[in-house]
Structure formats: structure tokens, C-alpha cells
């Protein structure tokens, strides 16, 4: 079996280090303070993406009577997901499960954050304090859930959201994150491969092979299927995008949709939000490298290039097609670029990211304008067109751009070279199959799971306010406040 997984930079240096420092791995590695600092910084950056970043990006786009509703829903989502993550979410996502469900969900061994030690990275022998890994991943769960809110904005009761979020995160997010991101870390694989290489008699070989097989089998379903998703193209964006899409269909259109003017009440807030999203996204993408190594820098650089290129692409396409380059267009383009580069950020080369940016700009523009106009769904803030579609562009693009022939990093096989690791040969068909599997499984699991949860919530507390309340605005009716009193 051929292993595919994440890449690290400075491979030669690392190999040397491994040989030089081999005995050290027998002992516990200690975290490097530069890595710990980077991961704390990255965590706080992802937090700021969501609050206030995303909440302002979304909030600026709604009418002022629903501004607080949007801000509060996002803030609540952050808080409740965070607590659930600590209670059992981290454990379910990032520990090994058992039996037939192990490919899909973990266990409760680290519930209540008990037993934290160090967490593996994508480099053999490099660890970070597990607490910072818990927090970093926590912010991912929170923003994924919060992204959904854009689809059902301006017409969904706070009580419905309050119930939806704990259910969704538990039954949709944790399984998908486990499927794509859970694995046992590189050290067990490298050690087993090394033992296998060192084994001389057939019996020892057999035992060693079994150990290697076990190490390779310790991972989630899509991870083992060879799907690569550096920072969450499927886990975060396709997942939330399709959950939002089914949500907006189930919740129904806003009163007056297509008739009343529903212009953004403050593109200034949207601009601030977009900038904070970009700002924080460096933590999101480069933090997903889990250490401050050269490949974090690669992810960082791609997060610049693809984003800027998508923004410019959207701008020029809109200028040509609609006659004017709009502010909302430019920043929507930037967000679409961020989405598309998310799965690719640690794998693509600089010029690969640039091309990805152009493609994402054209495709997402087409979905947010033409497709939406044709099908007339009220995905209020374009979660589907930007996140789901952008995520799919990114997921598939990653499969192409990871190719070293295109400047990509290739995929590390930790078992190669007798456990010293190396870059696996690139196989286009195999990789694209894995990526497609990733996209489809995520669309199905999240699409169906989310639909069921929206329906359950509708039955229990009801999704929509009365028409008068919707007209008065959710700020007053749900929260008893006004956003502005100038």
C-alpha cells in the first residue's frame, strides 16, 4: 500500500538530523519554543478570523436591523463549539476510535481534555504541546460552524441557531474532521519502517511489517483514502458550504427576497471583516503546518498569492461583465481565493497558487452571480458560491498542483527510505480519485446530516420568526437591542 500524506520542508536537513539525532527519538522529544509561539500565534489569528472577522464580514452584508443577530449568532457559535470541543469534541475527533466506526469517529479517551501531553506534527521527531493543538483545532471547528450562518441570515431565530450548533458540530463536523485529519503521526510510521528495514530474518520481517501496517492503518477514512487537504478545503469549506445550502433551502427565502432592496448595510464592516479574515487566514493555513518550518512559509506565501490573484480576477471579470469593479466584488474574490488555497496552501508552488487564484475567481463569480440568479435560492451571503464551490475548486486543484512537476511539494511518504521518509511519486489519476472521494463524501455526509438536523431543529423550536418579527428585524425581536443609535 502506498501512503500519501502531508509534506514538510527541508527534507534533506531533516534526514540528516534524523540520522544524527536518531537516539533522541527514543526519548520524549520536547517542543521547540519557536513552534509553540507560532502555534499560539496561529491560534489567536484563527480566533480573530471568526470574531470579529467573519461576524463583521457577514454582518456588514445584512440589513442594519439584523446586524446584532448576525454578530451574536457568530459569537455564540464560537463559544458553544469551544466548550463542546473541550468536553468531548477534541477527543472524538483526534483520538483513535474503536471497532467498525474507527474510520469515522474517535473515542472518549481525552474527554474533558484529560491526559494531554505533546502532539505530533508532520515532521518526525517534532512535537508541540498538545494543549495548543487542541486550541488550534478548536478554532477550526468554531469557524466552520459559524460559516453556515451566512446562508440562513436575516430570517432564522436565535433559539434555532442555539440548538442547531451543538448538534451539527457533533454529528457532522467531528466525523468529517476525523475522517480527513486523524492519523497517528509520523513517528510510529518512521520507526516501524526503520525496524522493517533493519529486520533480517523472515519472522522479524513479518512482525515489523505488521507493525508498519498497523501504523499506516491508524487514520481516518479519507486520510487513508489518500485525500490531501492541508488546512480544510473539505473539512471546513465544502462542509459548511453545503450545510448552509441545505439550510437556506429548508429555512426558505427571506420575506421580500428578489423584490425589496436588501443592500448591505455597511460595506465598511464587510471590508474590515474581509481584511481580518485574510489576516487570520495566515494562522489558519500556515498554522496547519503545526511548526514554524520552511513549509509554513510556503503555506504563508501561497495564502498571499492566490488570495490577491482571485481578488484581482473577480475585480476585472466584474468590471468587464457588469461595468464596474465593486468593493464587494473585490473582497468576495479575496475570500474565494482564501477558500481555494486552503487545501492547497502547503502543497502548491507559488505560480500554481497564482493559477488556482484565477480559476477560483472565475468559477466562484459565475456561481455567485449567474447560477444563483438562475436557481433563485436565497443563500443570503453566498456561503455556497464562495465556500462550497471555492472549496471544491481548491480540493481538486490541490490534487493537480501538488505535483512537483508543477512546482508543488509532492506528498511525503514517511515509510520510504527505510523510515527516513521521502517524496512519493506523483500519480495524477490516483490523486484525483482520492480528492474526488474527499469532495463527494463530504458533500453527502454534510448535506444529508445537516438537512436532518435543520429539520429536527424546526420541529423542536421552529426555524423562523413570525413575518412581523422578521420585518421588525431580529435585533429587536431576538435580542431586545438595536445595533446603532446614532
Amino acid at each position: 500500500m502506498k501512503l500519501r500524506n502531508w509534506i514538510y520542508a527541508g527534507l534533506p536537513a531533516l534526514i540528516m538530523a534524523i540520522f544524527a539525532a536518531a537516539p533522541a527519538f527514543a526519548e520524549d522529544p520536547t517542543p521547540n519554543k519557536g513552534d509553540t509561539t507560532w502555534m499560539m500565534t496561529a491560534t489567536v489569528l484563527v480566533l480573530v478570523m471568526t470574531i470579529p472577522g467573519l461576524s463583521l464580514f457577514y454582518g456588514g452584508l445584512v440589513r442594519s436591523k439584523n446586524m446584532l443577530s448576525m454578530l451574536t449568532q457568530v459569537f455564540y457559535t464560537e463559544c458553544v463549539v469551544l466548550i463542546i470541543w473541550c468536553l468531548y469534541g477534541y477527543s472524538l475527533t483526534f483520538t483513535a476510535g474503536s471497532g467498525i466506526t474507527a474510520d469515522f469517529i474517535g473515542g472518549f479517551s481525552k474527554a474533558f481534555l484529560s491526559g494531554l501531553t505533546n502532539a505530533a506534527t508532520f515532521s518526525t521527531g517534532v512535537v508541540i504541546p498538545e494543549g495548543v493543538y487542541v486550541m488550534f483545532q478548536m478554532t477550526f471547528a468554531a469557524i466552520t460552524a459559524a460559516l453556515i450562518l451566512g446562508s440562513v441570515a436575516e430570517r432564522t431565530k436565535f433559539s434555532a441557531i442555539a440548538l442547531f450548533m451543538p448538534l451539527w458540530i457533533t454529528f457532522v463536523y467531528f466525523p468529517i474532521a476525523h475522517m480527513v485529519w486523524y492519523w497517528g503521526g509520523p513517528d510510529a510510521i518512521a520507526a516501524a519502517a526503520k525496524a522493517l528495514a533493519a529486520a533480517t530474518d523472515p519472522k522479524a520481517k513479518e512482525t515489523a511489517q505488521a507493525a508498519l501496517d498497523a501504523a499506516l492503518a491508524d487514520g481516518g477514512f479519507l486520510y487513508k483514502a489518500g485525500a490531501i487537504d492541508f488546512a480544510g478545503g473539505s473539512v471546513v469549506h465544502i462542509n459548511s458550504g453545503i450545510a448552509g445550502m441545505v439550510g437556506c433551502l429548508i429555512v426558505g427565502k427571506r420575506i421580500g427576497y428578489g423584490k425589496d432592496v436588501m443592500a448591505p448595510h455597511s460595506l465598511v464592516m464587510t471590508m474590515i471583516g474581509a481584511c481580518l479574515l485574510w489576516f487570520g487566514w495566515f494562522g489558519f493555513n500556515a498554522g496547519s503546518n503545526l511548526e514554524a518550518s520552511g513549509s509554513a512559509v510556503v503555506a504563508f506565501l501561497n495564502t498571499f498569492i492566490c488570495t490577491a490573484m482571485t481578488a484581482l480576477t473577480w475585480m476585472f471579470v466584474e468590471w468587464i461583465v457588469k461595468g464596474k469593479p465593486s468593493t464587494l466584488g473585490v473582497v468576495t474574490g479575496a475570500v474565494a481565493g482564501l477558500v481555494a488555497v486552503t487545501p492547497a496552501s502547503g502543497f502548491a508552488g507559488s505560480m500554481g497558487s497564482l493559477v488556482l487564484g484565477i480559476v477560483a475567481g472565475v468559477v466562484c463569480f459565475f456561481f455567485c452571480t449567474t447560477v444563483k440568479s438562475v436557481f433563485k435560492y436565497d443563500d443570503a451571503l453566498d456561503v455556497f458560491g464562495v465556500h462550497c464551490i471555492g472549496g471544491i475548486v481548491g480540493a481538486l486543484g490541490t490534487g493537480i498542483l501538488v505535483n512537483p512537476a508543477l512546482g508543488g511539494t509532492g506528498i511525503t511518504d514517511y515509510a520510504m527510505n527505510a523510515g527516513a521518509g521521502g517524496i512519493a511519486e506523483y500519480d495524477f489519476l490516483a490523486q484525483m480519485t482520492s480528492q474526488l472521494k474527499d469532495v463527494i463524501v463530504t458533500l453527502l455526509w454534510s448535506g444529508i446530516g445537516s438537512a436532518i438536523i435543520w429539520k429536527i431543529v424546526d420541529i423542536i423550536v421552529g426555524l423562523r420568526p413570525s413575518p412581523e418579527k422578521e420585518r421588525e428585524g431580529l435585533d429587536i425581536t431576538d435580542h431586545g437591542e438595536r445595533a446603532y443609535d446614532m
Partner: protein
Amino acid sequence: MKIVMAIIKPFKLEEVRDALTGIGVHGLTVTEVKGYGRQKGHTEIYRGAEYAVNFLPKLKIEVAVATDQVKKVIGAITGAAKTGQIGDGKIFVFSIEQAVRIRTGETDADAL
């Protein structure tokens, strides 16, 4: 010539505008106002402090029309702005003694 001034609920503006253009009135002026009346407001709570908000957002529409149109205009506004619930608003009619179009200096009926 008269001015018909109506206080309406904000979300009724488009319907009222359509009703008026429907009867051939092609100019009007709108002001955001706050109304106080029978319709009760809501309570806002900011930590310890609770405020009863009795001034509700309304729109004031002013339409200058020839005297013989007043009835039709009132009818159009009433039809479009009515929800049947308290707070639908009022219509008041005044006389104008003179009207001028600034651009051309036309006066009275020609100015509208």
C-alpha cells in the same frame, strides 16, 4: 394644489410608490421620522437599564398634486399602506399656495 402628507410603515414604501405611479403621480419626497401613537413600542435592555422605546420608525411621504387628484392619491396610499394593524399611520392634506420648479421656473400645476 394640495400636498398629501402620509406617515406610513417603512416597509410599505415600495408599494405606496408603485400605487402612486399607478395613478400617474411621478414625484414625491420621503423623510425618515419617528412616530408616537397608539402602536406600542418595545423594551430594550442594556445590562441593568431597561428602556421603553415608544418612538417607532416611520416614513413621511409628501406628494404635491392638483386638487382634483387628492382623493385618488388618498385612495392609493390607503390601499397600499394598510396592513390593518395599529400603527399603519395617517394622511394629512394641506393647501399649497404656490409651486415652482427650480430648474425651469415653471409654476403651479406645471411645476409638479
